[in-house]
C-alpha cells in the first residue's frame, strides 16, 4: 500500500498540471481564435528586407 502514497500524489500532480495549463491558456486568450493558429502555419515568415515605412 506504500505505493499508493507515491502514486496518488503523482496522479494528482499530473491532473493539476493539466488543469493549470488549461486555465492559463484560457486566461491568455488562446480560445478566442480557434482558426488562426491552424491558418498561420501555412505561411512562411518572409525574409525581412529593409524596414517598411509608411
Amino acid at each position, binding site marked *: 500500500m506504500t505505493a499508493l502514497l507515491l502514486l496518488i500524489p503523482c496522479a494528482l500532480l499530473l491532473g493539476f498540471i493539466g488543469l493549470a495549463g488549461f486555465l492559463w491558456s484560457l486566461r491568455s486568450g488562446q480560445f478566442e481564435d480557434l482558426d488562426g493558429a491552424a491558418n498561420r502555419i*501555412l505561411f512562411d515568415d518572409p525574409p525581412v528586407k529593409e524596414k517598411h515605412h509608411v
Partner: protein
Amino acid sequence: MDSDTSTCRHCGAPLGTGATGLFCGEGCERAFTIIDKAGLTAFYDHLARDPAVRPLRPEPHQPRDLALNVKLHDDGTASLDLMVDGLQCPACGWLIEVLLSRIPEIATARINHANRRLRLVWRGGAACAAAYVELIEGLGFRLTPFDPARLDAALGAELRDLLRCLAVAGFAMANVMLLSVSVWAGHQGGMGGATRDLMHWLSALIALPAILYAGRPFFRSAWRAVRHRRTNMDVPISIGVVATAAMSLSETLRHGPYAYFDSAVTLLFFLLIGRVLDLRARGRTREAAAHLLSLGVVGVTRLKQDGQAEMAALSAVRPGDRVLVAAGERIAADGRVVSGCSDLDTSLLTGESQPVAIEAGALVFAGQLNLSAPLTVAVTAAGEDTLLAEIARLMESAENERGRYRRLADRLIPFYTPLVHAAALATFFYWWAMAGEVWQVCLLRAVAVLIITCPCALGLAIPAVQVAASGNLFRRGILLKSPAALERLAGVDRVVFDKTGTLTLGRPELKADPDRDEMALRLAAGIARASRHPLARALAAACPDAPVVEHVTEVPGRGLEVGPVRLGSRLWVGSADDASTEPELWLSRPGFKLVRFAFEETLRPDAARTVARLQGEGCRVSLLSGDRAPAVEAMAAKCGIEDRRAAMDPTGKVRWIGQCRASGEQVLMVGDGLNDAPALAAADVSMSPSSAADIAQTAADIVFQGASLSAVSETLAVARKAHAVIWQNLAFAVLYNLAAVPLAVAGRVTPPMAAALMSSSSLIVVLNALRLAGVGLRRKPS
C-alpha cells in the same frame, strides 16, 4: 503567380477592354506596388478569392478621426481594435500582419481569424493610427474601429467563468473517478478499512472544493429562483449535488464503506458542457447585431451651404443635410436623391439581387450600396432613425421574444421538483414520527430519496439526445447552432421560405430563347463583359467565348454604349414593348430589330420536391418575399406553394410570422438575406443556407451547406426523431423513479444498489440517445 492577363493582378476583376496593362485601376496598381516593394508577391500565390466577400479593390481613401477609438496605455503604448472587411482567405490575414509588423513602432498586429478582428498595439500617440489604417485600406480591405469592451465583455466573462468551472469539474471528475474505481475494486478484493477511508478522504478533499467552485452557476441560478418563489432545473440539481456531497461526507466521517463524490462531480461536469454550448450559441446572435451596426459608414462627405465638401462623423449628420455618396460607397443615412443618377445595390435591405436604377427624387436608405455614379442626397433620417438601425432593433427584440420559449426540461420541472421534495420530506417524517427512529437515520433515508431522484437521468435525457442529433446533422453538412432549436423544430407546422437565395440559388441566368439571333447574343455578351452589373455578368457568362468589344462606356442607371450600339434598359434603347416583370436587357443596333434578353432566377434543384415532402409531413408551406408579385407568383407556382405574399418588408415579415404564432402555429423560417434576419429571429426556429449574409447566418438556429434544399426536410425528420427519443428517455426516467423511490422511502435501498441504479439509468439514457447518431445516414449516398 497569377499570369492570367484578362483579370486584374490585384483585385481579380475581369479587365475591361479599355484597360491597358495588368490592373483595373490606379488603386489596384498602387496596392500591388506596396506588396511588391515589401517582397510579398507570394501573397498572390496563396490568395484564394472568395466570391462571397467584397473584392480587394481599394477605394479612394477618406481621412477620418480614429482618436476616439484609440486607447492610450500607461506604458506609452496605444491600441486600436478594428473589424476587417474583405478578408478573402488566410493569406489576407497573413499579408496584413506581416506588413504591419514591419513598421518599427508597431508592437503587435494580430488578426483573429475566427471573428475577423484586427488588434493593433504600437508605441506612440493616437495620431499614428491613421497611417496604419490608410496602409491597409490601400490594399483594398475596409477597416471599422470598434470598442471591444462594449461589444462582448459581459458575454466573454460569463463564458470564461463557465469554462473555468468546466475545467475544475473535469479535473475533479477524473481524479475522484480514479479513486472511486479503486474503492469499488477494493470491495471485491478486500481493501482494508483504513485504505478505503484514505481514498474517501482524498476524494472529499478534491470533490468538495470542486463542487463549491464548479457548482456556482447552478447554485446561483437555483437561489435566484427560490428567492422569487419559482423553481427551475437548477433547484433539484443543486439539492441533489449538495445532498450527495453531504451524505458522502457524513459516510466518510463515520468510516462508512460507501461515498458518492464521483456521481456529484460527474453530474456537474456533464451539465456544464451543456451550459457552455448553449452560451456560445447565444453569443453569436449578439455578435451579429453588433456587426450589423458596424456596417454603418464611419465618415460621410457633407456639403456645406457654400457648396464646399467637408468630412463629418456619421453621428453629426442631421436631417436636412446634403451628403455626397461616391460610387462604390454605402449610403450612410436615409434620404432623397437631389442630383445624379445611378444604380443601387439594395440587397442588404431587400434581399433582391437585382440593382435598382435611381435618379433625382428617389428615396434611398442607409445600407444601400451606390454602384455606378456619385449622388447627392438630402438626408431625411440619420443614425438611430434609419431603416438599417430599425432592422437591428427588430432583430434584437425578436430574439428576446423567442428567448421566452420554455424548454421541455423547464416545463417539466414545476411538476417534478415539488413531488421529489415532498417524497423526501414524507420519508423523514414517516420514519421519525411513525417508526420512531433517531433523527440521523431518518435524515439519511430522506437524503437517499433525494439522491435516487437526483435528476441524473432527467438532466442527461435531453442533452444526450441533442448531442447525438447534432452530430448526425453535422455529418450531412447541417450545423445546429443552438441545441434547444431541435425541440422547437420538432413541433413545427408551418414552414416559411424566402424567395431569392433560399428557394432559388440567388443569381440570374439567361433564359433560353429559340428566336434569338446567335450573332446578337455574341455581340451583347462581348459588350456585357465591360460591366459588373449582375445581369451583364449573367449575359457574359452565358456566352463565355464571345469576342471582347472595345471602347464600351457605361451610362449609370441606363446601360452600356459602344458608338450607336446600346445594351441596357427597355426605355433607354427605345423599346415600345409593354412592361414585363422579368429582369431583362435590350440590345439595339442601327438597322436591326431590337433583341431582348430575359433572365430568370434558377430554383434550387430539389426545391419542389422538398416543398412536397414538407407538405406530406403535415406542414403548411408559405412563401414570403420582398420581390414584386408576378415574380413571386411564378416562383411559388413552380414549387407548388399556394400561400404566397409579395412585396413584404422586414417589418411586414416579422408581423406576419407573429400572427401565425399568435394563432398557435409553430413557425420555421428559412431565409438568407439581411432583410430576413429579423424574421429569422422572430420565428420559433430558423434555417439559413451557408451562402446567406453573415447576419442571417448568425440569426438562424441552423445553417445548411450545399445547393440542395432537402436539408430542410432532413433536419425536420431528425428533429422529430430526436423528439421521440427524448420522450422515451423521460418516460424511462419517470419509470425508474417510480420503481426506485418507494424502495428508498421504505429504507430498502442499500448504497451499492443506489450506485448501480444511478449509473445504469444514466447509461441507458445515453445509449438510447446514441441510436440517433446514424438515423437516415445510410440511405444517403455520400
